[in-house]
């Protein structure tokens, strides 16, 4: 005989304001097998939990139903409470009467009726629950960080510091990411390279860190604690061990006209190159699309000049397979395509540039040696217009609906530095709102306006007209003066929206980690679990989770590392007991289940069965490995004989819920 206890939570007024809690208790108390029903203002509070524990003991409950918030919120809390009272935690069911009832309905009668039905369904399911015991799985004590920008670097360093080995996979030939391209950092104006390169060097020197540069993640399998990852090390055509990074090959290479990605195409590199002076690893790489030797076998100059004998034209991509306990996504961002905003004439004039291009033009290691010169004619610009929110906060198909968060501050930085270095310039900033939440951020922006005489204009630019004399006619609105302005500018800088790396979507699919509609990784909880993906064992660091600046990225990277360290410190993980199992007597060995299993958790055994006539017969039957099964249930539907079922979500349980709802 089952004995079910029902507990209905008020959640303060969150539930009680729209659901008549007493009526729910009364109705559910009448359900068969229910021996106890009560309500409480906050079931998740300690005294609420005590109420549950006491009832379990006192009434010798065999099942518990809690009508409260979403099970995604407190199922774990209530299961723990049940366990501490001696009840198997998997005998607890939660009816979601907050998110899926009280919060979406206004009519009290309607909401109360729905809450009762949801409670009945939970009781029906609880009656069919069986005690489950979670298995354990081992933890591979090594982490993988995907992406070698500041987010990935910081996460890797913190994990390594705690004593765990960690690998960084970076698709470019060097780590460093966007921060390596930036000139100065706000709000302190430290030199970006000066604070980044020591960290890059630390990565290279730390015994616990391995860097797979010029590499990509090829496939991911497994689950939290034991992932298996294949990494494609793209052919560099340079032996990583032999190359000393002397750079002689990059000086002798005859192919001189390859646009230099690091300087965003403002100057050229060779076909064999080292991305920049402080690259880590400092190893040359040959661009197979441009190298004459690789294209048609005619050259070989680099091989001849290399004293270390590191050049190897026959090198091929290499696949490395490695095991990890945790994976960190740190794939960062790209600058969105500004050509979609034709009114800004980015394609029509070389003197309309993006902010990242501006960084290269003011960087001492950049194409102009840090002297701000117009890309079109190399002359010194006198009037510079900065345009904010180019593509950000744009709800059209071509834009990004979110605020890119960093543009207000870097534009203030650009404007301030320009005025400081070139007092003969006039600098205008067109803004919609200036957003500067952050320590010393608003003070920084105000300094640009107050001390450096940057003209901040509330309004937008409608059109940029490139003139025959090389100037740019900027047509704009000044909303405070209520007038249309025309500024004749020498240089226009677009604060382009940032967007997640194009590689992120493919990676998310491999990791089975969810993404939002903008292709940012989704966090497990926006407030309480901001650095974890809902997929166990996957962690998030940096802009791949949402726009953020360097200080915020570094803090998040550290937080992410702490979560990874917490996981890797465990020797065993408790698994999910809601896994599939097959009834051997019903199984006909058809393989339908194994064919749909995404984890290869199902194998077949030849097993001896006693037949009714006392003979024995060997039959082929399915067997599920509970450590590998993730509990999706695909096999249960594929099984034609009905042998396969899923613990915690069994066929009979879901049927019972259906019946209770349609009753």
């Amino acid at each position, binding site marked *: 005989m089952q004995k079910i206890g029902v507990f209905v939570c008020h959640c303060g007024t969150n539930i009680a304001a729209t659901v008549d809690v007493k009526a729910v208790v009364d109705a559910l108390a009448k359900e068969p097998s229910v021996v106890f029903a009560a309500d409480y203002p906050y079931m998740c509070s300690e005294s609420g939990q005590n109420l549950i524990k006491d009832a379990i003991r006192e009434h010798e409950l065999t099942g518990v139903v809690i009508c409260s918030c*979403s*099970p*995604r919120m407190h199922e774990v809390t209530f299961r723990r409470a049940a366990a501490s009272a001696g009840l198997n935690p998997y005998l607890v069911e939660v009816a*979601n009467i*907050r*998110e*899926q*009832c009280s*919060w*979406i*309905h*206004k*009519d009290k009668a*309607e*909401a109360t*009726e*729905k809450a009762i*039905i*949801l409670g009945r*369904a939970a009781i029906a399911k609880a009656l069919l629950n069986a005690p489950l015991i979670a298995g354990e799985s081992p933890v591979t004590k090594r982490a993988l960080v995907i992406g070698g920008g500041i987010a990935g670097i910081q996460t890797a360093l913190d994990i390594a510091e705690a004593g765990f080995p960690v690998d960084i996979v970076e698709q470019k030939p060097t780590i460093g990411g966007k921060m390596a391209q930036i000139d100065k950092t706000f709000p302190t104006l430290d030199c970006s390279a000066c604070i980044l390169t020591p960290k890059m060097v630390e990565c290279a020197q730390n015994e616990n860190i391995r860097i797979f540069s010029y590499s990509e993640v090829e496939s991911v399998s497994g689950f939290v604690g034991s992932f298996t990852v294949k990494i494609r090390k793209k052919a560099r055509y340079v032996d990583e061990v032999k190359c000393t990074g002397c750079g002689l090959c990059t000086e002798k290479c005859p192919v001189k006209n390859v646009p230099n990605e690091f300087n965003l195409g403002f100057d050229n590199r060779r076909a064999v190159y080292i991305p920049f002076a402080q690259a880590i690893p400092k190893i040359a790489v040959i661009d197979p699309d441009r190298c004459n030797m690789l294209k048609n076998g005619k050259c070989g100059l680099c091989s001849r000049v290399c004293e270390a004998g590191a050049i190897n034209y026959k090198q091929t991509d290499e696949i490395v397979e490695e095991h990890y306990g945790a994976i960190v996504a740190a794939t960062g961002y790209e600058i969105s395509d500004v050509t979609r905003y034709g009114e800004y004439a980015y394609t029509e004039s070389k003197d309309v540039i993006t902010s990242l291009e501006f960084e290269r033009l003011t960087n001492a290691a950049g194409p102009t040696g840090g002297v701000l010169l117009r890309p079109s004619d190399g002359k010194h610009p006198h009037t510079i217009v900065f345009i904010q929110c180019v593509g950000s906060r744009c709800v059209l198909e071509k834009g990004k609906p979110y605020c890119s968060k960093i543009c207000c501050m870097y534009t203030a930085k650009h404007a301030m530095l320009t005025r400081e270095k070139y007092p003969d310039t006039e600098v205008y900033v067109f803004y919609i709102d200036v957003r500067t939440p952050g320590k010393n951020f608003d003070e920084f922006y105000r300094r640009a306006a107050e001390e450096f005489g940057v003209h901040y204009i509330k309004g937008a630019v409608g059109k940029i007209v490139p003139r025959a004399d090389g100037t740019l006619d900027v047509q704009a609105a000044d909303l405070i003066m209520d007038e249309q302005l025309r500024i004749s500018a020498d240089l226009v800088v677009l604060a382009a929206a940032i967007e997640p790396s194009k590689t992120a*979507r493919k990676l*998310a*699919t491999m990791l*089975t980690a*969810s*993404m*939002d*509609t903008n292709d940012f990784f*989704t966090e497990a909880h926006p407030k309480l679990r901001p650095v974890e993906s*809902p*997929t166990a064992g996957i962690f998030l660091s940096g802009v791949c989770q949402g726009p953020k600046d360097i200080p915020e990225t570094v803090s998040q990277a550290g937080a992410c590392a702490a979560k990874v360290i917490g996981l890797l410190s465990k020797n065993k993980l408790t698994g999910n007991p*809601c896994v599939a199992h097959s009834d051997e007597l019903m199984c006909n060995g058809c393989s339908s289940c194994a064919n*749909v299993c*995404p984890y290869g958790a199902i194998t077949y055994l030849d097993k001896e069965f006693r037949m009714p006539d006392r003979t024995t017969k060997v039959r082929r039957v399915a067997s599920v490995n509970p450590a590998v099964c*993730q*509990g*999706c*249930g*695909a096999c*249960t*539907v*594929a099984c034609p004989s009905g042998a396969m079922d*899923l613990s915690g*979500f069994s*066929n009979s349980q*879901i*049927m019972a*819920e*259906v*019946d209770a*709802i*349609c*009753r």
Partner: protein
Amino acid sequence: MQVNEEFVPTIVAFCCNWCSYAGADLSGTNRLPYPANVKIIRVPCSCRVNPTFILRAFQRGADGVIICGCHPGDCHYTTGNYYTRRRMTLLFSMLDYLGIERARTRVEWVSAAEGQKFAETMRSFVKDVTALGPNRRLEDLRCRKD
């Protein structure tokens, strides 16, 4: 049974724990209303939904059944939603053969971030089913409530 204007259909929604169930929670958190006659059953993945569950629902008097899963390519279990799509295509054509109107069943992809979409989807589904009136074709008279 008379089709009157007060007709309130019974709707069963099977929601994947990783996406649309969370999407439904989000529409709650954001207070985005949808009709109370939608009752959600949590499943670990849309591919857990056995066609027999849907038949059972219709037999027990449900007027519409909707299955919500992760967007193609986003399945927590990699390929579960593709199975759902294939299975439900077959089931729906069978239901069609049985005379169950096509609009009584739906498969929708709703992510955990799409609270708005969840509420809109439910509103439109309820509207469609309400327009069709009560389900009679598969209903088992012995299960009728009144």
